[in-house]
């Protein structure tokens, strides 16, 4: 059974439209104008256990909004959603026990207390038995090299140090599904590499399913056999990473072309090149994780999801 199953998932935000100038601001006090933004527009997404999926797209594409729906933070405007067998926002407390979440832009830890104490609180919150907790902490601290950091208050950590702690914190309760929203943002090359190794390792060792957003395509190349490309709330491409890479072309160029709505050629000889092609090459990853079937993907066109 799929671990993430989204059908026609949609999120709209009503946005306050401010008028220009001081006079405009004054008028805004009395009558407000709103516009509706469709941040996520009827997307279909299925992820199987054990997959590592890269969720990419330009700024404002709707990646974070999708993740917030998948993690139960936001209530979808429309559509069906089942993650780990739960409707996330409806059975929130039960559901979040089964997932781990890291937002690169925001700390999940308590600011003023030592990392170790934050971890202990999380242990209590999730009700992790002592032996299991010690075993996991040992493993995580080993791979992420947390050693000296554990006794430092979170506010005194550097960004890279904090991010390693955030990753450990998200995994202390042994979730089967991990959401990462820009986990490598602002990190130096060494830390990035370490985090990539780490993610690969937990995926291989524990079969943890990972959905990750990033603007660093090197993250994607290193980790994700499957990519989902989103723009303006719609999925432009969902399939194997290899299928969109054409010979001699770097991933950067290919992705830029897709973002700009230019020709997308299927690596496996799928659909013809052209503007806003209705058919994009590549198929969804097959059951069971990293194995990928390049042929026979679902279709995503300008007119509506297939």
């Amino acid at each position: 059974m799929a671990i993430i199953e989204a059908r026609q998932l949609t999120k709209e935000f009503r946005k306050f439209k401010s008028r220009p100038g001081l006079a405009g601001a004054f008028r805004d006090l009395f009558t407000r104008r709103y516009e509706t933004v469709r941040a996520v527009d009827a997307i279909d997404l299925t992820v199987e256990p054990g997959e590592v999926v890269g969720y990419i797209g330009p700024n404002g594409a709707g990646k974070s909004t999708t993740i917030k729906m998948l993690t139960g933070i936001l209530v979808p405007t429309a559509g069906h959603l089942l993650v780990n067998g739960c409707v996330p926002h409806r059975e929130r407390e039960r559901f979040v026990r089964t997932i781990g979440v890291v937002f690169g832009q925001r700390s999940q830890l308590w600011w003023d207390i030592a990392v170790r104490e934050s971890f202990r609180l999380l242990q209590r919150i999730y009700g992790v038995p002592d032996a299991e907790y010690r075993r996991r902490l040992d493993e995580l601290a080993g791979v992420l090299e947390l050693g000296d950091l554990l006794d430092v208050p979170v506010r005194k950590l550097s960004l890279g140090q904090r991010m390693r702690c955030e990753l450990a914190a998200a995994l202390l309760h042994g979730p089967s599904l991990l959401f990462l929203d820009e986990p490598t943002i602002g990190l130096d090359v060494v830390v990035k590499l370490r985090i990539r190794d780490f993610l690969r390792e937990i995926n291989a060792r524990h079969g943890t399913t990972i959905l990750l957003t990033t603007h660093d395509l090197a993250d994607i190349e290193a980790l994700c056999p499957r990519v989902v490309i989103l723009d303006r709330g719609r999925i432009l491409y969902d399939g194997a990473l290899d299928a969109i890479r054409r010979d001699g072309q770097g991933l950067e160029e290919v992705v830029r072309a897709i973002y700009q709505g230019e020709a997308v050629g299927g690596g496996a000889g799928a659909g013809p090149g052209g503007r806003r092609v209705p058919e994009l090459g590549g198929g969804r990853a097959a059951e069971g994780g990293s194995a990928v079937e390049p042929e026979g993907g679902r279709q995503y066109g300008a007119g509506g999801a297939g």
Partner: protein
Amino acid sequence: MALRGLEMARYLPLIARFVAQNLKSRLAYPADFWTGLASDLVHQAANLVFILVVFQHAPSLHGWRREEVVFIYGYFLVPFAVFHATAANLWDFADRYVVRGEFDRVLTRPLPSLLQVFLETMELESLLGAVTGVAAMAWAGRALGLDWRLADLAIFPVLVAGGVAIYYGIFIALAAVAFWTDSRTGLIPLLWNLNAYGRYPVDIYSRRLRFVFTWVLPLAFVGFFPAAYFLRRGAWGWYAALTPAVGALVLAFGVAVWSAGVRRYRGAGS
């Protein structure tokens, strides 16, 4: 309600841990801790002095003696201190959690969101207000020659709990308004001083206000009615019997508004 209560008992060990952790991080900034303590004390002293000054020119106000008014204020300080110490995080909830999106983190943890918001920041030093309050009650009670009964020992915590529940309910509902608006300050700083209405005899207010503070925003049940019970001021004292029920009702209302608000939470645009 009883069921909710049982559910809460499950969280007691966790609450204790958060309390300890809070004290620890509070003490990591000793200056803040002492300033908080001192400002509370100054505030309470000023209020007591105010009462004494008012009574310098009149032996009684609307039939209330100086010591009785001090007693009411002292009693009020007890539920207020508990509320202030535990619900401190509601103060800037709108800005910190809703506008800046910290509520994201709360929603990714397997605990009731409201419980987490309460536990994440506490100002436990404010509990000292309860000591001030009990001291004021003791002084005034002696001066008035109050007769305490044994049952009062049991009734006192029940009435205090009811008063705290009323405060919780009102301010939880006010904090939850942040889920509907995009205001940064929220309503709480604006309406914080409402609490003052619970600490004077209601008959000093006009009929209309008296009605409001009894049946609409039932602040009179927090301080005045229970205090009147201990002062044995028959008519008003009887209202105190309703305090627990009013508390349960107002708290349930606040929690309902909160739950409806959480569904509307939209996060911070990124």
